[in-house]
């Protein structure tokens, strides 16, 4: 029991950067700000509906309020949404915003129709409001750094920035699990998985809309007779919902689930024209991803732009004097070694590509045929006669095949780190593509006839 608790504790209270939670505050806050801006007219019209339709839900325990008061409260919520997004006076404005937003949303749903698409946005705002989501990337942080010079809030790391993120994910998967239970506990039970009811749901939804004057939905009419499609969709959607809690167990399981659920909502939009804004924009799923990496990419892009024109010259060409001076002035600090096949045209081109897009000089290079390269191959138990993979050693950790290629891209100047997103593709699939190309590389790419003359700064990065 103690071990279980400790594992849970380490998982739930793992350290995370303050910027992750802060970025979630900005994204969710910006979404709500846009949502309120876009729906102001609808909210005000709904608030003028026949009071007979009013059936209070949630935290609304009273009758309809005057339009003037509602407008005032709506506008106050909108202003607070902006302050929340900017992170100004978070300790006061955020709880006030969460409370007002909860009331506003409940009031809007109290007119005989509950829209379920907004539930999770409200829950996420509550989590962000009661946590330290404005410790970084906020006006509060700017004001604090002015009061206390040197207080770099963006570099803060701690458990207090992780549990709200875990909770946001947990709330999302719990809601989907509740949806699955509703299907299984409903009148259809397990029969729901046959897809007949899903097909009927889609049909009735389309008819409701058509009978209220909407243009017939061509997709639902085209799909209606494809019973097998609905059988597959019903099983897939029930799996996504019922097994949602598994997404909490592992980082990649979370990514996989979030992407699938995101696509499921786009499928619902395509087939049924039902718009779940929070889901369709992807904002709801951001907590599953290390969103702070966007800042790393942004800084890398800014750095790349900053040293634009001072990149190392291509191999065989003289380096501009300014670039030589700039590079020489930097402390040579390499973090990884790339071992490649020295007799392969594709590998040669790849090394040139890395040299060109590695202004931070993260990589050093050696051929697999060199003593150091052979040592690495022996360490990985790979043959030194049939070279089918490059090896990238980062820290002391060796990486091969597609993982090596993607991890190299991650360290390059923007936009190449975006390719690292392919790491979520299962490794056998990635390595299959890599092996396909590797087997044909000598056929497709001839090795260079002659060795280029490199500038001294570049030559220093080659170990062999």
């Amino acid at each position, binding site marked *: 029991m103690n071990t279980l608790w400790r594992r849970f504790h380490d998982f739930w209270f793992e350290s995370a950067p303050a910027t992750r939670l802060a970025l979630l505050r900005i994204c969710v806050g910006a979404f709500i700000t846009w949502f309120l801006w876009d729906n102001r007219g609808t909210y005000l019209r709904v608030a003028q509906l026949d009071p007979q339709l009013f059936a209070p839900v949630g935290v609304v325990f009273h009758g309809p309020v005057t339009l003037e008061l509602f407008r005032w409260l709506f506008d106050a919520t909108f202003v607070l949404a902006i302050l929340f997004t900017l992170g100004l006076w978070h300790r006061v404005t955020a709880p006030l915003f969460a409370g007002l937003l909860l009331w506003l949303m409940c009031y809007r749903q109290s007119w005989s129709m509950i829209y379920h698409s907004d539930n999770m946005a409200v829950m996420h705002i509550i989590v962000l409001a009661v946590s330290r989501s404005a410790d970084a990337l906020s006006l509060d942080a700017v004001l604090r750094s002015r009061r206390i010079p040197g207080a770099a809030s963006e570099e803060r790391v701690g458990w207090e920035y992780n549990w709200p993120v875990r909770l946001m994910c947990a709330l999302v998967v719990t809601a989907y699990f*509740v949806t699955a239970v509703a299907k299984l506990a409903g009148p259809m039970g397990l029969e729901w998985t046959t897809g007949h009811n899903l097909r009927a749901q889609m049909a009735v939804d389309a008819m409701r809309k058509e009978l209220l004057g909407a243009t017939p939905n061509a997709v639902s009419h085209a799909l209606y007779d494809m019973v097998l499609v609905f059988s597959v969709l019903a099983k897939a959607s029930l799996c996504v919902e019922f097994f949602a809690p598994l997404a909490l167990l592992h980082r990649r399981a979370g990514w996989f689930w979030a992407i699938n659920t995101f696509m499921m909502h786009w499928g619902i939009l395509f087939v049924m024209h039902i718009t779940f804004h929070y889901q369709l924009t992807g904002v709801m799923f951001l907590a599953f991803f290390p969103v702070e990496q966007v800042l790393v990419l942004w800084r890398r892009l800014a750095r790349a732009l900053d040293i634009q024109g001072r990149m190392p010259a291509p191999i065989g060409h003289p380096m501009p004097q300014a670039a030589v001076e700039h590079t020489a002035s930097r402390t040579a600090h390499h973090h990884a070694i790339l071992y490649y096949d020295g007799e392969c045209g594709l590998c040669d081109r790849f090394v040139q590509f890395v040299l060109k897009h590695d202004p931070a000089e993260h990589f050093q290079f050696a051929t697999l045929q060199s003593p150091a390269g052979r040592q690495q191959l022996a360490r990985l138990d790979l043959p030194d006669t049939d070279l089918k993979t490059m090896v990238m050693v980062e820290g002391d950790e060796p990486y091969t095949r597609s993982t090596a290629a993607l991890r190299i891209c991650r360290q390059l100047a923007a936009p190449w780190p975006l390719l690292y997103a392919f790491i979520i593709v299962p490794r056998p699939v990635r390595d299959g593509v890599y092996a396909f190309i590797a087997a044909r590389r000598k056929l497709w790419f001839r090795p260079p006839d002659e060795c280029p003359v490199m500038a001294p700064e570049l030559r220093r990065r080659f170990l062999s």
Partner: protein
Amino acid sequence: MSPDPSSAVGHDKRLALCICLVLIGAVLSPLPQNWSRRPKDNFPLSYYPMFSAKREPIETFYYVVGLDGEGQRRYMRHTVIGDGGENQVRKALRNIVQAGGAPELVQTVAQRVAQRSGRRYRDVVSVSICRGKYNVDDYFHGKKDPVSERIYATAEVNRTQTP
């Protein structure tokens, strides 16, 4: 309870854990509605009943039909019936009809139609609030007429009074 040596940190973690348990518990709390005799949906804590309801081969719908001079039917858009989107209007229409408010509503719809000049509305001479039963399968195979229909209220579209 907490493995953290600092009691202040331990207290903060316990508080965080309480918040987590309360919120996750809150999202799970509507689950018993699934087995309730009279389930009630709520916001933001829902039991998400929308896709679990069993659909019948013949379904009932509320709508507003307009007739042109030649007796052709045209379904009126939700925007001339009420505010708040298709689903909001659908539910409001059903509630109003069930509360006996169809005669007043149909007059309002007729006035709105009279003010519209779009192709859907310009030839409409009368509007009726209806409840119709439709065979879903037939509808998706081209037979779009209702199996049965009850008209709750009808109003003439009087364009001469339109300002």
